[in-house]
């Protein structure tokens, strides 16, 4: 019965949507190219990692599809929040915990490309910057936080929740930093820009990050419950 509840939640939540990525053309060309170049190595390592994992455990493809689907669903759901803004969840932490940070680069790219091409959310020129913040920073922060919490013997549910929460916030902090860097000038320092952008992104995101934490715990436990053997092969350090 609860699988239908999960599906109902996912279907009921989407409504009319607005984007949360850096919009097309709103990153100067030199910065857009720079961020794309910075993202490429992570994409390369991510594709290679997925290939290696799939060869080690063929059932990993199904789990990877589920992780990708999770990002697809969460990043399509818009929720209103504080400050008169609405924003999206991200879903990156789940895949980062299960497969490792680099593996999320391809999923992040697919989701962002889908939204840029079909929905005019984000953009092609800002793809590198958006992918870097979402799939790289979000994943790396998730891994660092999760491993730190597990080393401190924090319970799995609490660790996953905090990881997803912090990862979500980190993505938007990175986006704020990217914009603050690109638009700094003699009149607008990085610091003042960052505070202005973060007041738009991160504050809005805080309650949404709580929801993302809960959803991530739910799906993580489902996957661990039914695929613990596959996860032990895919990511032995996870110790589920």
């Amino acid at each position, binding site marked *: 019965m*609860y*699988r239908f509840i*999960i*599906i109902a*939640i*996912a279907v009921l939540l*989407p409504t*009319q*949507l*607005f*984007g*949360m990525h*850096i*919009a*097309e053309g*709103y990153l100067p*060309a030199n910065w857009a190219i720079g961020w794309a170049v910075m993202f490429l190595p992570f994409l390369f390592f991510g594709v290679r990692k997925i290939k290696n994992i799939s060869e080690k455990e063929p059932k990993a493809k*199904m789990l990877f*599809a*589920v992780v*990708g*689907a*999770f990002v*697809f*669903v969460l990043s399509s759901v*818009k*929720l*209103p*929040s504080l400050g*008169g*803004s*609405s924003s999206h969840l991200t879903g990156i932490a789940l895949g980062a915990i299960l497969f490792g940070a680099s593996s999320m680069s391809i999923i992040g790219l697919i989701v962002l490309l889908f*939204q840029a*091409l*079909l929905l*005019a959310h*984000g953009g*092609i*020129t800002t793809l590198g910057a958006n992918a870097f913040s979402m799939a790289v920073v979000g994943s790396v922060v998730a891994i660092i936080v999760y491993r730190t919490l597990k080393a401190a013997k924090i319970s799995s549910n609490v660790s996953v929740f905090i990881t997803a929460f912090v990862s979500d916030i980190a993505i*938007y902090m990175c986006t704020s930093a990217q*914009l603050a860097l690109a638009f700094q000038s003699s009149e*607008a320092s990085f610091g*003042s*820009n960052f505070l*202005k*952008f973060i007041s*738009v*992104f991160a504050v*809005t*995101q805080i*309650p949404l990050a*709580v929801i993302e934490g*809960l959803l991530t*715990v*739910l*799906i993580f436990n*489902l996957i661990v*419950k*039914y695929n*613990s053997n596959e996860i032990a092969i895919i990511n032995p350090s996870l110790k589920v």
Partner: protein
Amino acid sequence: MKKYFLVILAILLVSLPFVLFNVMTNYSGTDDKSVSVIEQVAPDYTPWINNMWEPQSDFSEAILFSLQTAIGVFIIALYVVYSFKNKKYKV
């Protein structure tokens, strides 16, 4: 089972006010607000490129986002049904 039900209930309780609020209001997205901030900090900046294609109406945009959601939900649903069917849970 009860644990999952409680988590789902928590998600619904936390998200329901936002959904209802969304229906009653017309909040703008954070990228719209970030564009406003860009116009404040760099008033001379103009976008150097536009989206190649945009949905022609709010309705078509919502349909396409729903398509994204539907793709994801379909895959998750397949996984859930497959997992239940194979009964791989630990007793």
